[in-house]
């Protein structure tokens, strides 16, 4: 594990910015974080928690002409653990046989531990951590005087090697500071989710049954698709025929026409099966087929919901529910 002094961050960022566009989580005045492009003179900060919009749109934009990629590759500096876990599922879908060449796999992910949490964050309730454990190129953790850096693969190791003048070996006391910082964030999360105890196995088993809970929540869902749009693990799209090339639009299983076939048949015409499908996709289907759950506990769906549905409560209700 390497150590980068705070005062050397800017030099490192400047070096990386020569061949790549860098995006980082900018702190907004309302307390939220949004992705911003780094430019010389800006102060790049990687503290805080997840951004309003997920990491996924750097890998497949919401609307994209499927033609040759242009422009510099991007580095996402300060991606959170939840987003990186979402990306693991997206990679299985987009890059597993056959590989989708339009998925921007040249984008580098420099993740950073969460140092705070949003009120809707609940990754720890799902058994995950507020930092990335793998699938990053570099991960940045925090110590008093700088950052502890782990490389997550060949590209990350190369970056460390090529910039070795900026890095030192991390000391035991710096590692201890990192662990303390991580524990502190985890404790925030534990406290804000104190009353939420979720057993994913029980949830997944019960979610497959016909529960009243889906009907209850379907009554307040307005099918706006905000939950899927902001979800870091939702991958669905619609492939359209453009004038010169195919166009990919992000899509939502919560839209009424999503599963409709020619002639009008539609297995999920009604809201209840649509709402249920989304939950089952995340906790039953993707774990069964891609071996990764489709929820990362980022809580963006709660923040975005126009029907004020709290998906943590949906899971608790499923867990407590009886088979009809």
């Amino acid at each position: 594990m390497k150590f980068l002094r705070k005062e050397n961050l800017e030099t490192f960022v400047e070096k990386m910015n020569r061949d790549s566009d860098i995006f980082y989580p900018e702190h907004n005045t309302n307390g939220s974080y949004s992705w911003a492009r780094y430019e010389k003179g800006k102060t790049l900060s990687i503290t805080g928690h997840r951004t309003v919009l997920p990491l996924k749109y750097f890998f497949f934009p919401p609307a994209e002409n499927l033609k040759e990629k242009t422009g510099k590759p991007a580095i996402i500096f300060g991606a959170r653990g939840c987003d990186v876990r979402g990306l693991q599922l997206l990679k299985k879908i987009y890059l597993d046989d056959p590989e989708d060449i339009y998925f921007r796999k040249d984008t580098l992910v420099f993740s950073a531990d969460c140092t705070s949490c949003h009120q809707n964050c609940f990754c720890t309730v799902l058994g995950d951590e507020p930092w990335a454990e793998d699938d990053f190129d570099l991960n940045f953790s925090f110590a008093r005087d700088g950052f502890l850096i782990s490389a997550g693969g060949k590209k990350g190791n190369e970056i460390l090697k090529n910039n070795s003048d900026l890095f030192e070996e991390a000391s035991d006391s710096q590692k201890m500071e990192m662990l303390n910082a991580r524990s502190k964030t985890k404790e925030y999360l534990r406290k804000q989710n104190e009353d939420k105890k979720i057993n994913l196995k029980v949830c997944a088993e019960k979610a497959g049954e016909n529960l009243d809970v889906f009907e209850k929540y379907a009554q307040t869902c307005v099918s706006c698709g905000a939950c899927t749009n902001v979800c870091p693990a939702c991958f669905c799209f619609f492939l359209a025929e453009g004038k010169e090339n195919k166009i990919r639009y992000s899509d939502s299983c919560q839209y009424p026409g999503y599963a409709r076939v020619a002639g009008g048949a539609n297995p999920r015409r009604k809201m209840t099966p649509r709402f249920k499908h989304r939950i089952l996709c995340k906790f039953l289907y993707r774990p069964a087929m891609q071996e990764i759950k489709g929820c990362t506990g980022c809580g963006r769906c709660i923040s975005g919901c126009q029907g004020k549905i709290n998906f943590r409560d949906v899971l608790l209700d499923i867990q407590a529910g009886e088979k009809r």
Partner: protein
Amino acid sequence: MTADIYKTMKANVEAVVDETPLIKTFVLKTEEAFSFQTGQFIQFTVPGEGEAPFTPSSSQFQKEYFETTIMKAGRVTGIIHSLKENDTVGIRGPLGKGYPLKEFESREILILGGGVGMAPLRSLLLTLLDEKDKYGRIVLLYGAKNPVDIVYSGQFAGWKKRGAEIYRSVDKCETDQWKEKIGVVTELFDEVKLNPSKGIAVVCGPPVMMKFGTFKLLEIGYKPENIYLSMEKNMSCGLGKCGHCALGKYFACKDGPVFKYSLIKDIGDIWD
């Protein structure tokens, strides 16, 4: 560089055959070599306009060209129906998994079809007939709404000659022109002796027909693992990425479109 999985290959419309007032068969010749296994599907692209999934309706051994039979049911199929001979279209595929013909060898094969659902079944039937000696009896039960809705109406006699046993029904017929069964397709089971405990059954048709057809097959003793269903879902990418054709945990485009009933019977909404 890895290939673009969404790229279409050019195909020439060699001929357009009117099957019924709403159904046409398109004979297509691709620019590059193209082959498929019966039961697999293609994305048929009208450049700049749209694309939609269809199953070839010709034998997999027919290599010079292939056919696909399409019902006019929406915007894209409306555009496809306006295509003329020598128009250029696009093809993506073959996509998905076809019928596991190895498992069909030496066994009695019952083909149960309804309406335009006969299209993929015609491909299967012709493929089986091309290697008839490999299989046991080949029995086709086919139903349509009216005599005028029967697809491939001029071809059944030829299939019979090649060794298929064929029973047909129409739901209704206002004149006395129809000499065969009048009633829903499942009523044809009364007219044929089958070997359900050992046989294979393949079903394709409108959802309601597939539902009651499958229930009838189970009732007379077909095993769930010997019933194959062609699941029509909203395939968009056709490659297991876009999520549109989700059928429980499966993507119909990649894991299907042909599924053993035993694999999908516990999914709630398969008949809708």
